[in-house]
């Protein structure tokens, strides 16, 4: 058997990209090459997909109790087994994603809307306005989300809405601070001076120059706050201050599994994995976005 010899010139396998590339890669291409961003985006997509899927289909029922099927191990019928009341664990985890996303989305929106507004006002007005806003932010910061949630619960009773409000309030000073800090940096730029020399008002400069230039910082912070909100929701539900039964929530699944730690340890593992993966995914997404949107902040790898 005669082997055909390959006469083509072999191209050495060392990276030549840096030299051959004529045009800088677009955002989409760079995103695909960023491994942690891709992983983060996948995990986040998985979280959202789980929540969406739970509206139309779940493998079993997340609500229906079946005492005969209590504490079963995984099987073809109950993929992740059942809890002490015989509810399907996989279904509960899918439905529980809804609570996490709802809390994250609304709480981050509250924080983003009010915090960014306050931060922008502080940076644009300076002087005593800035002092008052930032001292109020410090004051709010002194109360962790858990503490404000407990206070709200004490006054209005436990529930998901109160948990969302508490986490949202906690997000306001975070966004206010980061907005003010980045906005102040933009305000000292030459192009803001040039815009002022062209007669633009503070409001116009804030909207046209400051906001677009800090948008990437805010997007990154929002994903990180989203992850923190999921954690906070889980913590509040674990303490019985968040999502109320029979609505499934990862935090509450953890607290219910706690008493059965030695009989059925997997009951705690699955919601724990769900929380960990969601938070990890959002954090990786945030880090990746930061690298992609603002390459100057990239850490050396």
């Amino acid at each position, binding site marked *: 058997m005669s082997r055909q010899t390959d006469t083509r010139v072999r191209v050495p396998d060392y990276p030549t990209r840096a030299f051959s590339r004529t045009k800088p890669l677009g955002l989409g291409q760079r995103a695909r090459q960023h491994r942690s961003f891709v992983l983060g985006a996948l995990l986040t997509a998985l979280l959202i997909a789980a929540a969406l899927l739970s509206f139309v289909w779940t493998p079993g029922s997340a609500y229906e109790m079946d005492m005969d099927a209590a504490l079963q191990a995984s099987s073809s019928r109950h993929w992740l087994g059942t809890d002490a009341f015989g509810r399907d664990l996989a279904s509960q985890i899918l439905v529980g994603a809804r609570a996490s996303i709802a809390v994250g989305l609304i709480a981050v929106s509250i924080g983003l809307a009010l915090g960014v507004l306050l931060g922008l006002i502080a940076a644009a007005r*300076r*002087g005593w306005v800035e002092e008052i806003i930032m001292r109020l932010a410090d004051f709010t910061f002194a109360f962790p989300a858990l503490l404000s949630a407990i206070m709200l619960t004490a006054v209005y009773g436990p529930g998901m809405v109160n948990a969302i409000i508490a986490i949202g309030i906690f997000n306001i000073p975070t966004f206010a601070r980061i907005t003010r800090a980045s906005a102040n940096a933009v305000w000292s*730029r*030459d*192009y803001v*001076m*040039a*815009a*002022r*020399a*062209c*007669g*633009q*008002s*503070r409001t*116009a400069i804030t909207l*046209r*120059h400051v906001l*677009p*230039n800090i948008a990437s910082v805010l997007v990154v912070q929002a994903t990180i706050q989203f992850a923190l909100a999921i954690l906070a929701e889980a913590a509040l539900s674990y303490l019985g201050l968040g999502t109320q039964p029979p609505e499934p929530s990862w935090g509450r699944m953890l607290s219910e599994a706690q008493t059965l730690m030695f009989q059925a340890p997997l009951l705690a593992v699955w919601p724990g994995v769900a929380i960990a993966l969601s938070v990890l995914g959002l954090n990786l997404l945030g880090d990746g976005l930061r690298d992609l949107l603002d390459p100057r902040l990239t850490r050396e790898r």
Partner: protein
Amino acid sequence: MALLEVSNLTINLQTHRGRAQAVRDVSFTLERGATLGLIGESGCGKSLTALALLGLLPEHAQVDGSIQLDGQELLGLSERRLCALRGNRMAMVFQEPMSALNPVHGIGRQVAEPLRLHLGMSRAQARARATELLERVGIAQAAQRLDDYPHQFSGGQRQRIMIAMALACGPDLLVADEPTTALDVTVQQRILDLLQELVAEHSMALVLISHDLGVIAQNVEQLLVMYGGTVVESGMTEAVFARRAHPYTRGLFAARPQLQAAPAAGHLPTIAGAVPELVDLPAGCPFAGRCPHTRDDCYVQPPPARTLHQPSMPAPASLAFWRQPHVARCLYEQVLTQGAKA
């Protein structure tokens, strides 16, 4: 009435070391279509004077005196009224074209901004006008490049874009703060020529700030030499350049690098000492101590303004700037007259 009348402008800055008088008692007038140069070392107050004209000083600055544009007092004007004037009646070109354009917006939009703001143009009108303006300042194929971002232009091009932006609404007064300092020497002259053309075209008044004697010599009719926040010498550019009455002006000229006459010692002459911190300025002459003619009185007594030459020929109103007297500040008249002999 002169277009711009600045009288006894004084700017105090609050610094962590105490109050600093950054600009002291600066006065000048500028006619429509006239050009004025401000020259001096860094920290002499020339940029602050320029910012004061447009009301762009930092908030902690205290301003006294008077700045009148066409008879309207600008100091103490509300931010709202100032915004209506900036970019419309008066405009400014900055030193750093690399950072004076917003990196996230296309240049067309940035040039169109003042047009929409002050002249109420529609988006399409402003865009069309921005194209014309960019073409006028020499951006090739302006129509195709309207949506390009600042980083796609060179420094010289960006400065041209900044000029287009400043001139968009046809201001009466243009303040150019070191417009060519950040540019290559080859580009500098072209930018200055462009400024000259546009100033003549629109009969604008130009305040040109520079530390470069060459730039000043070729581009302005009238000159203020600033040191330590005060105007130490002022007059028509030819007069000041010819006579160099104030010791500081003489020092500046001596420190110029010259090709034809290399200094014997092989070193460029310098002005001894360093610019004093504004907080530590002596009560008397700010140049006291560095001046070769310093006497004890110089530290205490503020130097009076001495008119060295008063043009006797009454000039027609359109050439009113020719009437500018030559003035220098020094305690001792003989020091100023020495310069004339030298």
